[in-house]
C-alpha cells in the first residue's frame, strides 16, 4: 500500500480542523462508542433509510453502514472546492446546450464528433431544444477525491440523477441528535437548506407555458427502487408530490396528475428515472414506468423535465476527459479542480499503455456505474487481471483507465478503535436561474482496510461531512 494523505494527521501532528475531534474521541470510551453506534443504527432503521442493492436479493431493508467519525474541511479548503464545483457545473451545462445546438466545441475540434454524436446518451430527440434558463442538468453530483494537502481530483461527474443526498442530510441530523456538544464546540456550516434550495431551483426552471406558481413533482420508478427512500424523503422535505408514471398523463398540451379531485396540471418534473424509460412513445416502447407523450409536451414547452433528457452525454466517462477543455472553451477560465489523468482504450496508443500496465491501473467501463465492471489493478490477482484483459481486448472502446490514486484517509471507527480508511466526496450542485451549493456533501468511506472502493453496493459506508465556518 502506497502511503496516502491522512486528513487528521499531517507529519504526525493533528491538523487544525480535527483538533477538537481528538478531544472528543478521548472522551468516548469503547463502551459508550458501541452504545452510540447501536443507537445510530436504530435511528437509521427507525426512519427507514435503507439501501437495497440491485440484483443482490437479500435484505431489502439493509442499512448503509454509518461511521460516526466526521470528515472535516476547513473554510479555505471548501472555498476552493466550491469555486471548482460551480465552475464545472456551469461548463457542463454550457456543453449540453452547445451539443444539442450548434455544436461549436465540436466544430472547433476540441472534442471528437463521434464521442458525442454516436454516444448512446446523446438524445437525437432533443436536438435544437434550449430548456428553460438554458439548463440541462439541474443537480450535478461531482465525485471528488483528495490525494494531498492541496490536491483534489474530480473522479467523475453525475449530470443525470445523482443519488445519496438524503444521506448527507440524515447523517447530519443523526449526528446532531447524538452529539449536540460537538456542534456547540465546532462551528459547522449547516446543510439543511438543501431541500428548500432544490425546490427553488426546480421552480426557477418552469416551462414557457407555465403561468403563476409552478407545480413541481418528483417522479420515482416506484417503491421497489433502491433509492425510493431518498425520493420519498426529498419529496416530503420539499413539500411536493411523489409520483409514479401511472399518476401522470398527457392531455392536450400539458401533463396532468391524477388526484382525488380531478386532473391537476404539472409544470416541473424532477425525475429519478432514466431517459430510456420516461416516455414509451419516444424511447423504449416497453417502458411501464414512464408517461406516454411526455416528450412531446416537453418539446413543445408544456413541461420541464429535470434533469433534461439527454443530459447524460455530459457525464459519460469518455466525455469526462474533455471537461477541462469545456471549461476553457466556454468559460475562458482555467480548471480549478483537475481531472484524474485518463487513458481512452478506444485510442490505439492509450490502449497499448493500458494493457501493458493493467496491474497499476483502475479500469472502468465507460457506461458502467456503481463500482461494477471495474478492475482495481493493484488489488487484483493475476488471474483476475488476465480475465479483464480479455474483456478489454474484445471491445476496447468500452473502457477507460486511470492511475490508482492514493485516496486520502480519515479516522474511522473500526472494531478495535480508530483507524484510517479511504474516503471520497460527492457534493450536490444545484443549477437553475442561479447556482447553489450547500457547504458539504456525502462522504463515502471504504470500510475494509486498504480498500479503495467506496460504493455502498460494495461494502462502503457513509460519514457526516463538516465544513467549518471561518
Amino acid at each position, binding site marked *: 500500500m502506497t502511503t496516502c494523505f491522512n486528513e487528521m494527521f499531517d507529519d504526525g501532528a493533528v491538523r487544525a480542523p480535527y483538533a477538537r475531534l481528538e478531544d472528543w474521541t478521548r472522551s468516548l470510551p469503547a463502551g459508550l462508542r458501541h452504545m452510540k453506534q447501536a443507537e445510530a443504527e436504530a435511528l437509521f432503521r*427507525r*426512519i427507514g433509510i435503507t439501501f437495497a442493492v440491485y440484483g443482490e436479493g437479500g435484505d431489502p431493508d439493509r442499512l448503509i453502514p454509518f461511521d460516526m467519525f466526521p470528515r472535516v474541511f476547513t473554510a479555505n479548503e471548501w472555498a476552493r472546492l466550491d469555486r471548482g464545483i460551480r465552475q464545472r457545473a456551469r461548463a457542463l451545462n454550457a456543453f449540453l446546450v452547445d451539443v444539442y445546438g450548434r455544436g461549436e466545441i465540436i466544430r472547433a475540434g476540441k472534442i471528437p464528433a463521434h464521442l458525442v454524436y454516436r454516444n448512446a446518451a446523446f438524445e437525437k430527440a432533443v436536438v435544437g431544444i434550449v430548456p428553460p434558463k438554458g439548463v440541462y442538468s439541474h443537480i450535478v453530483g461531482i465525485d471528488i477525491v483528495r490525494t494531498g494537502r492541496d490536491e483534489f481530483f474530480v473522479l467523475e461527474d453525475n449530470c443525470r440523477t445523482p443519488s445519496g443526498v438524503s444521506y448527507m442530510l440524515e447523517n447530519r441530523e443523526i449526528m446532531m441528535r447524538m452529539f449536540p456538544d460537538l456542534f456547540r464546540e465546532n462551528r459547522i456550516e449547516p446543510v439543511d437548506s438543501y431541500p428548500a434550495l432544490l425546490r427553488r431551483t426546480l421552480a426557477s426552471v418552469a416551462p414557457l407555458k407555465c403561468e403563476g406558481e409552478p407545480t413541481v413533482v418528483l417522479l420515482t420508478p416506484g417503491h421497489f427502487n433502491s433509492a425510493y427512500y431518498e425520493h420519498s424523503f426529498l419529496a*416530503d422535505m420539499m413539500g411536493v408530490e411523489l409520483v409514479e408514471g401511472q*399518476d401522470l398523463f398527457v392531455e392536450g398540451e400539458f401533463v396532468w396528475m391524477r388526484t*382525488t379531485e*380531478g386532473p391537476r396540471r404539472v409544470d416541473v418534473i424532477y425525475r429519478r428515472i432514466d431517459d430510456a424509460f420516461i416516455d414509451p412513445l419516444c424511447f423504449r416502447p416497453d417502458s411501464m414506468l414512464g408517461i406516454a407523450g411526455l416528450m412531446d409536451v416537453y418539446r413543445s414547452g408544456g413541461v420541464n423535465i429535470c434533469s433534461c433528457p439527454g443530459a447524460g452525454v455530459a457525464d459519460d466517462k469518455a466525455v469526462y476527459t474533455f471537461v477541462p477543455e469545456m471549461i476553457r472553451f466556454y468559460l475562458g477560465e482555467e480548471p480549478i479542480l483537475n481531472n484524474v489523468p485518463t487513458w481512452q482504450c478506444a485510442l490505439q496508443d492509450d490502449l497499448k499503455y493500458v494493457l501493458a500496465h493493467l496491474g497499476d491501473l483502475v479500469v472502468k467501463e465507460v457506461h458502467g456505474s456503481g463500482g461494477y465492471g471495474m478492475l482495481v489493478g493493484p488489488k487484483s490477482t493475476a488471474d483476475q487481471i488476465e480475465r479483464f484483459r480479455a474483456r478489454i481486448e474484445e471491445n476496447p472502446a468500452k473502457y477507460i483507465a486511470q492511475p490508482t490514486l492514493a485516496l486520502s484517509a480519515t479516522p474511522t471507527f473500526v472494531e478495535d478503535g480508530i483507524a484510517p480508511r479511504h474516503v471520497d466526496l460527492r457534493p450536490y450542485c444545484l443549477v437553475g436561474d442561479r447556482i447553489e451549493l450547500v457547504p458539504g456533501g456525502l462522504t463515502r468511506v471504504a470500510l475494509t482496510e486498504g480498500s479503495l472502493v467506496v460504493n455502498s453496493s460494495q461494502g462502503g459506508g457513509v460519514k457526516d461531512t463538516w465544513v467549518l465556518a471561518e
Partner: protein
Amino acid sequence: MLSRTADTLFWTARYLERAENMARLLEVGARISLLPSVHGYRSEWDSLLQASGTAEGFARKYGEPVARNIESFLFFDRDNPSSVVSCLTQARENARIVRAALTTQVWDVLNTAFQEMKQLERTPRSELELTQLTEWVTRTAALVRGSIGATLLRNDGYDFLNLGYAMERADATARLIDVKYYVLLPRVEFVGSGLDNYQWMTLLRALSLHRAFHWSYAGDITARKIVDFLILNPENPRALRASVEAINTALGRLASRYGRQMDAQVRAEAMLAPLSETSVEGIFEEGMHEFLTGFITEIAALSHQVWEDYLTGDVR
C-alpha cells in the same frame, strides 16, 4: 391529493384493521377451545377458518385443522394473505410508499412494530404464547390509531384512513356475527343455551367489549341484547351502526372539502337509515343471516363506489 396516495392510505387502514380483527379471532378460537367440548375439539378451530374466510387455503396447505397449524396459518403464514403477518407487512409497505402523507410518529410506530414482528418471526414458536401474540397485535393497532389521532393533519388523507378503518371494521363485525350464528354454533337448538352464552361472552371478551356490554345491559346475555349491542347500539364503537356513522363522517368531510357530493355519499347515507330506524325485532323478522348478508353486500358496493369516485385516477 394523488388518487394513488388516497388509495394506499385507504388500504393501509384496512390492512391494519384486518390484522387486528384476525388477532381477535384467534383469541376467540383459543378461548373457545378451552371449553369442555360438546361436539368435538376440531370444529371450533375449523369454524375459525370459516370465519376468516381462509378454510380453503388452509386445507390446501395443511389438511387436518390442528390448533398449532391454525395458529401458524392465521398469524405467521405469508402464504395466507389474511394472516396477521401478511396484513401488517402490507400495511407497513403501504405506509412506506406514502411515507410523506404520514407523520413521523405514525411511521415510527408502524415501522417499529414491523421490526418487532420480524423479531417474533425469528423466535421459536415454543417460546411464544398465543395470548402474548394477540395482545401484541391489539396494542400495536391501538398505538398506530392513537398516533394517527394525535398527530395527523385533519386533511383528506386522514379521511381516507378513517374510511378504510370503518369499512373494514363494518365488514369484519358483520362477518363475525354471521359466523357466530351459522358456523360456530353446531346445531340450531344450542341457540340461547349455556354454550351459546359462553361463546358470546368469549366473543365480547375478544372484542374487548365484555365489560362495556355489562355496563350497557344488565342481567343475562340474550340474543336480543347481543344483536342490539353489536348491530344497533350507537355507543358501541364496534357496532355496525357506529362503523357506518364513521363512514358517513369521513365521506361527509371529503364532500365538503372537495365541494362536491359524489355517489358514494348517497350510498353511505342510504345505509345509515335502516340501522338507526330498525329494531331488534325487525332484524329477527328479516332473518339475521339475510340482514347480515345484505349488509356485507352493501359495504362491498360502497367500497367500489368510493374507488370509482375518488381512487381510480380518472375523476374529472
